[in-house]
């Protein structure tokens, strides 16, 4: 349902988005949605600190010493929860500088912390939409298909009624992810082994997380011939799903806020310009 194209703003969308990026729920509180803000804060930060506890704050110790720069964690999903990431870097960083054993639950904990980053990314989008939408329900309707696209690639498009597009996204991205996992013989499912490829691959969403829980701890006992190809396929599948999520968000946003749809085709000449040409 298209709403008024120019609804009254609840606040500045960019301020709401920035506040949420630093502190989950802060943008919603700024927009007057205190209850929702508090719930989102509890969800995102609860997930983040549970992940931090399970991983012992050692996620960034996966990085080789030569990669440990202040900007190294920027290319990780946790960047979506900037306040949490800064807190982690301040309190744990890259560890004490000595090799020490990782806790048994580090893979799962690290995954939860990364998930909190993605969730807060969605929360940022929700805050930005909420500031422009005429009702909180309209903002929910924009965000729900986007979140569905993270649960299963293509599901967001399907919920919007864009069946062909959803099926193409699902078929292509899942094929790339499965092929990548087969080529890499499951070694792509470990953040410890392939920190940055894993970060890109995380965008594939729930299928990637389930695959990691099932096969992520497999031991590599021999040389894998096509491991590089497998890593690239997994990583590109995740990054392309982020592109698909932006597409879902843009479509819902244009439907709810009455914005024009994106098109690569040139704008048709208006009746006025045709009259001018004739004159």
């Amino acid at each position, binding site marked *: 349902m298209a709403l008024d194209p120019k609804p009254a703003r609840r606040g500045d969308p960019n301020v709401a988005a920035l506040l949420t990026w630093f502190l989950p729920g802060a943008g919603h509180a700024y927009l007057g949605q205190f209850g929702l803000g508090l719930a989102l804060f509890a969800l995102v930060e609860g997930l983040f600190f549970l992940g931090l506890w399970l991983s012992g704050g050692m996620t960034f110790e996966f990085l080789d010493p030569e990669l440990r720069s202040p900007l190294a964690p920027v290319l990780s999903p946790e960047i979506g929860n900037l306040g949490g990431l800064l807190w982690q870097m301040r309190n744990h960083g890259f560890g004490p500088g000595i090799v020490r054993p990782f806790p048994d639950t580090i893979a799962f904990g690290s995954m939860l912390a990364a998930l909190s980053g993605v969730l807060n990314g969605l929360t940022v989008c929700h805050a930005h939409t909420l500031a422009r939408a005429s009702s909180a329900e309209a903002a929910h309707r924009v965000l729900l298909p986007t979140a569905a696209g993270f649960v299963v690639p293509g599901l967001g498009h399907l919920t919007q009624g*864009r069946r*062909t*597009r959803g099926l*193409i*996204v699902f078929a*292509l*991205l899942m*094929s*790339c992810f499965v*092929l990548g996992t087969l*080529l890499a013989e499951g070694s792509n499912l470990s953040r410890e082994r392939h920190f940055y490829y894993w970060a890109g691959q995380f965008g594939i969403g729930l299928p990637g997380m389930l695959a990691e829980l099932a096969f992520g701890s497999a031991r590599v006992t021999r040389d894998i011939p*096509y491991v590089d*190809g497998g890593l*690239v*396929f997994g990583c*590109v*599948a995740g990054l*392309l799903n982020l*592109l*698909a999520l*932006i*597409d879902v968000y*843009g*479509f819902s946003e*244009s439907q709810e806020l009455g914005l024009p*749809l*994106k*098109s*690569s*085709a040139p704008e048709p000449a208006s009746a006025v310009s045709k009259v001018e040409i004739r004159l």
Partner: protein
Amino acid sequence: MTDVLVHALLFLLMGTAIVTLGTFYSDADDARARQAWPRRMLGFFGGCMLLIAVMLVCEHTFAALG
């Protein structure tokens, strides 16, 4: 030779996924996106072939390791 073919096939698959998603991303209308897809595929893989040709020429002339 088999290795080269496998790499070429993988590249074809990856390129198809990237071009297809890029095409659908750039146009919200499915029909227009489908219409633009062959041209985009041709542009992408044609450009890649051109780049391969240039690299092979370089490899066999002034950049030859031998």
